[in-house]
């Protein structure tokens, strides 16, 4: 005989993510989930971004890696509080789940904070599936990875609200078709803003930082109204 169940497999995570979202909203913190394949430049972009927005925008970072505290050490130089999560304690998870973020966020004083950045584990597949209670998601793609990543990993690009095309300083050395890459991204997620950046030279970071500023200000405004 058939017994009806109808339950989403990730409903436990979704529930925890909603709790996180409420907790972040109470504190008026804008939470940004930064995702990419390994080595696209997430940490380098965040290092540069933090030195330019701190202390005006009070920021903290939760960074997930399978192991090492290398990224946390690099990000701490900015003066922002950094919590490193090593997922090997959680079975080498390929993504950060909502309960892991909840634990990490408790180690940070959210009251005085405007922006909480989560650098997810380097992976273009799994993190897209897991809501962590963030306000916005962005994906970093480096030009060394090929033009067609967005159509190969559509879920990630559908789930994000902005894309950074990073390492543009390498373009002279590659046969990379920037227009084609933009076309592919636009077909998967029409209208999504794409920022061309070089975390190495700093080129293109202005419009990306302006994008963050707008969103942090919106969230702070919302909290004041509440």
């Amino acid at each position, binding site marked *: *005989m*058939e*017994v*009806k*169940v*109808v*339950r*989403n*497999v*990730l409903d*436990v995570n979704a529930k925890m993510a909603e709790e996180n979202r409420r907790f972040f909203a109470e504190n008026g913190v804008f939470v940004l989930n930064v995702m990419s394949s390994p080595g696209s430049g997430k940490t380098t972009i965040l290092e540069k971004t933090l030195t330019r927005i701190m202390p005006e925008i009070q920021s903290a970072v939760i960074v997930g890696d399978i192991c090492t505290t290398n990224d946390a050490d690099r990000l701490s130089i900015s003066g922002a509080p950094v919590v490193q999560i090593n997922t090997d304690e959680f*079975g080498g*998870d*390929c*993504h950060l789940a909502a309960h892991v973020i909840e634990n990490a966020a408790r180690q940070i004083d959210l009251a005085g904070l405007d922006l909480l950045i989560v650098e997810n584990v380097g*992976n273009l*597949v*799994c993190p*897209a*599936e897991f809501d962590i209670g963030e306000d916005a998601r962005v994906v970093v793609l480096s030009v060394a990875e090929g033009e067609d990543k*967005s*159509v190969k990993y*559509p*879920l990630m690009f*559908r789930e994000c609200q902005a894309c950074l095309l990073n390492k543009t300083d390498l373009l002279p050395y590659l046969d990379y078709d920037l227009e084609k890459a933009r076309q592919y991204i636009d*077909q*998967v*997620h*029409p*209208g999504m803003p794409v920022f061309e950046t070089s975390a190495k030279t700093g080129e293109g970071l202005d419009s990306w930082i302006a994008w963050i500023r707008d969103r942090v200000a919106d969230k702070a405004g919302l909290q004041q109204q509440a």
Partner: protein
Amino acid sequence: MHEMGIALQIIDIATAAIPPEMRGRRVEKVNLRIGKLSAVVVDSLNFCLEIATRDTSLAEAEFSIEEVPVVAQCRECGYEWQVAQAVFKCPECGSGNLEMISGRELDVVSIDIEEPVDSEMQNQSR
């Protein structure tokens, strides 16, 4: 890559769904629905389910996976279609303002439990 975690979650949900009066009966089938846009590779999931159900009450269960196509509806003109080749633009009017109708499912829909053998039925009716 997270198929093992998903498999364990499926096993938890399916096991919890066995009504108390049916505990001990064999679960013949677990019916799943997985959207084509979800980040789950069905072959790896099957593999993980096989390993993770060993020595559990679901060891003999068959996992039946219905793959759900990615369907979108245009918010501008109402056209509904099955998305292919990761083109998320309305083929009628070109708009990218879409409502996703299906494709993200990751659901345990139902479980099939073996019918009680006759002697058991008699026991119950007594």
